């Protein structure tokens, strides 16, 4: 039946493309999470009146974050070609998409981390200080645990953005479902391939959103 509805779909190729999309998304989400968290913490902590309040450092980080967040992703891929060649050695395949995915998504997530940290009740930080907590203890025992629901919902939104970035990366040679939809679907005029690729991306996005929502709800004890 499948072959009557989707005559042009090669299932093994589709499976391979799905795996590539999942691979690119998963690796980039994990690295984006840690890089974005570090950047977001740096943004928050260096803001005036905070633990490491430093106006100069704060504006430097803010500028870097804003610049990379503002460049359209498809242009970022092109701009990063020399950098990607340098560290991955090629411009083809899923690995080659990772640097651009991470550089594009980490600043986006960093802003969300910063917002999440700003939401923390200042009194709780003051209480920790009054107990003689070190800055490291404040970061790992107060700031991160107290902002977990927002950190998780933020990484959920970022992960969904990353799935759509992988599709764009696919067009310039990274493989995955985006590449399949464009090369096999659009270029060869096989509408069924485009359709099924889209459907699979939607399923991936819905699953990510569902998992993210479940985790956020279970973490929030407020």
């Amino acid at each position, binding site marked *: 039946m499948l072959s009557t509805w989707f005559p042009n779909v090669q299932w093994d190729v589709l499976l391979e493309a799905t795996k590539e999309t999942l691979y690119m998304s998963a690796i980039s989400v994990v690295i984006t999470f840690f890089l974005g968290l570090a950047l977001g913490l740096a943004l928050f902590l260096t803001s005036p009146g905070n633990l490491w309040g430093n106006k100069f450092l704060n504006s430097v980080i803010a500028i870097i974050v804003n610049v990379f967040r503002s460049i359209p992703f498809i242009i970022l891929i092109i701009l990063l070609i020399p950098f990607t060649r340098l560290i991955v050695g090629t411009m083809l395949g899923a690995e080659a998409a990772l640097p651009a995915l991470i550089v594009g998504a980490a600043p986006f997530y960093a802003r969300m981390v910063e917002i999440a940290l700003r939401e923390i*009740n200042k*009194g*709780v930080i*003051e*209480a*920790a*200080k*009054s*107990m*003689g*907590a*070190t800055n490291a*203890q404040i970061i790992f*025992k*107060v700031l991160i*645990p*107290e902002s*977990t629901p927002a950190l998780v919902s933020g990484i959920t939104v970022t992960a969904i953005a990353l799935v759509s970035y992988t599709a764009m990366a696919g067009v310039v040679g990274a493989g995955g479902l985006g590449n399949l939809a464009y090369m096999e679907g659009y270029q060869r005029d096989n509408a069924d391939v485009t359709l099924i690729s889209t459907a699979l991306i939607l399923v991936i996005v819905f699953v990510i959103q569902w998992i993210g929502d479940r985790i956020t709800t279970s*973490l929030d*004890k*407020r």
Partner: protein
Amino acid sequence: MINLQSVRKVFQTKDGEVKAVDTVDLNIKQGEIYGIIGYSGAGKSTLIRILNMLERPTSGTVTIGGKNMSELSPKKLREARQEISMIFQHFNLLWSRTVRENIAFPLEIAGYPKAKIKQRVDELIDLVGLEGRGGSYPSQLSGGQKQRVGIARALANEPKVLLCDEATSALDPKTTDSILDLLVEINQKLDLTIVLITHEMHVIRKICHRVAVMEQGRVVEEGDVLNVFKNPTEPITKDFVKQVTEPEETVDTIKQFISEFPEGRIVQLTFIGGRAGQPLITELIRKYEVDVNILQGKITQTQNGPYGTLFIQIKGTESALARAMEFLNSVQVEVEVIHNA
């Protein structure tokens, strides 16, 4: 125990300098409950934060337990802070932690081993009366229970000083009293020095031994709670004393009474300490030919003894009135004639 010398804190704002704390000297003794009262903006929040260096003083010295707080290295300051705990108006508990985990928090900071933490948390839960609530999250507790967690958390490291930042201002009157009772209990049981700031004279009256009144960054009046109640000198102190001794309706009641029954003399008697228990009125009626009509009275307990006010109307001949007044003035009672002097 705690000594402040010429402590000043000046904030730079767009509208120029703001003197939050202006040349404050204080001396707080070991084991004392010391109250600082003032309206909002008087500088009391800044002052209490200067004690544990959450705010750095612009000038002056703060000595706690022999340590000059502003000269400690960051590491020494963190160690000193473990001995100077703080509780807050809005409790400032970690919502992501259970009651037990919140109480364990300062112990984790101080690097206690796990087994020791568990044992200490159990003791503290008993001490503040939160048996059976250890696994709850702060969002599942009432305000009073949250403050009990705050107190348990503050006592975890066996501090020498407890700072209370408007600790009862967010609580209803009944809960306020139960928290104040708990503070007195730990003050006696643990010989803990307590410094509290508040805008409620009720709190000062109920648990403090000594009080400082703050206005515009300065301490304008200071002393034993009972003495301050007896002889408030500054207008602001008189206002605060009236909060507890003379509720607003008293003034209205007396005014109303005077307009309806203008005859006789209306006198306000103020009893301090042991005098509050003396059968003064009986003596007054027996010895002098006067009629006494009691209008309103109130006895207030402080940590140093009772304090009472009584409004009476005295009627009689001029000479009898004069002798009655002489008698009242001779016993150790403050007398103020407020009508027909």
